[in-house]
């Protein structure tokens, strides 16, 4: 079992060129910020390193940080420009019983992150969900389709904080 500090030290030694941000002063769960174009290499290392063996991706959550520039459109609805979307990866090693939380920040206007499906198969549906509800584009994902919303839903990604309901969907009034 390794502590958060030991795991982050191992990561920094392994990837000297990557600029990790170690957030250990957070109140409940310390985490490491990983750049979106390196997340698959980092995850592969975390899974295959003999002392770490993070063999299970427990959870993958997408979050709309809603921290850009707030403007209003003609109808007076909030519209967000810029800012970030976050992905939180909760990893766990069943053998050593240690856990780690990774966070990836991606541009809100053009979100794209490398997929970790090749590392853990369980990421497949989690990433599809993040794509469906937040519009995050996962590069190298084998099957990036909507999962919870209808396949023909063309009104955006509902869990974004500035999402507007469409007036009609296939002839049905939506806010009934």
């Amino acid at each position: 079992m390794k502590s958060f500090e030991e795991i982050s030290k191992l990561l920094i030694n392994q990837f000297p060129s990557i600029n990790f941000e170690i957030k250990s002063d957070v109140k409940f769960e310390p985490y490491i910020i990983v750049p979106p174009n390196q997340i698959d290499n980092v995850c592969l290392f975390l899974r295959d390193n003999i002392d770490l063996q993070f063999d299970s991706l427990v959870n993958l959550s997408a979050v709309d940080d809603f921290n850009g520039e707030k403007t209003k459109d003609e109808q007076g609805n909030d519209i967000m420009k810029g800012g970030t979307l976050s992905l939180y990866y909760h990893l766990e090693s069943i053998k050593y019983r240690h856990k780690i939380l990774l966070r990836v920040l991606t541009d809100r206007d053009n979100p794209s992150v490398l997929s970790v499906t090749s590392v853990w198969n369980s990421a497949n549906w989690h990433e599809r969900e993040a794509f469906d509800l937040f519009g995050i584009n996962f590069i190298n994902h084998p099957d990036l389709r909507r999962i919870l919303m209808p396949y023909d839903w063309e009104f955006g990604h509902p869990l974004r904080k500035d999402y507007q309901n469409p007036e009609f969907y296939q002839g049905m009034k939506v806010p009934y």
Partner: protein
Amino acid sequence: MSVRTEEMVLNMGPQHPSTHGVLRLELTLEGEIITKVVPHIGYLHRCFEKHCEVMTYPQIIPYTDRMDYLAAMCNELGFVIGVEKLLAIQVPERVEYIRVIMAELQRIASHLVAIGTYGADIGAFTPFLYCFRDREKILNLFEITCGARLLYNYIWIGGLSHDLHPDFIRLTKEFIREFKPNLRELNNLLTYNKIFIDRTANIGILPLETAINYGVTGPMLRASGLRWDLRKDDSYSIYNKFDFEIPIGEGKMGTIGDSWDRYFVRVREMEESIKIIEQAIEQIPDGDVTAGIPKRIKPVVGHIYSRVENPRGELGYFIISDGSATPFRVKVRAPSFVNLQVLDVLCRGHMVADVIAILGSVDIVLGEVDR
């Protein structure tokens, strides 16, 4: 002379009784052998996570009931534990005991549905009625406690909505006394039934490494041979005070990790839950269950991942608080959602009729898959 063959795509569901709700499976067949299964979900999507962003923390609890509607008590427990950690409050010991009793009764009730419908799916209708007869008794216990039979809103942040009914302990003991022989009867009726074993043993084998890589948890993971239970391995509430075993699949009728193992792990888990309830009702202390409920629920800024062992696996809530009375984001890691992914691997190479046997052994609740 060779006969021309081609693949056939068969649609199963969404309105199909053995899909346990509204699940559509797109089966690709080579003759009668399955080469690929693509599940289509989302028919029951009710925007739980979007709702959470506009409601206060106590208002969310009834919505958590409606995810895994067969295990509503356990859903509430997971959410409430997370918020209590964010608020840094300690709940009275009596509350913890009652929570454990309720969660374990709920586990039995949920497994009874899983087992009963599993039998019904593959042709054994009698055990279904026997299981529902016993489940009804548990629902009666819940009813005298909080008035509801399925969706309770019982476990609150910092406490409970009602104390136990004066008759609860007596009735629970009575239930346990009646249930133990019923369980033996169920084993004779279904578990060791020749036809049942033929239909389930060596069907849908899930190797341990595949299970871990797919994030499978709960009875499915344990049936593949790993002793992993959050009640012991990441202990929450007061589970470390009780003495109970974690049953795993042993491949008694076929191979480790087959459908029969998954079924049998659930049967044995009910015995263990009985053990926990027996210990808990012996030790339960006195106290006030509503005194600790905070008037104002505004957690500090921060995020937490709280997880509990649901009847179907690991239920996790990732809660982000921005310091206001409503959460900034709640993401649910639903066990059925993750477990369903592995269906394709399980079904490949089997017959169409086996899909029903395999899907029943996965034990999904669509309310939770789609949220």
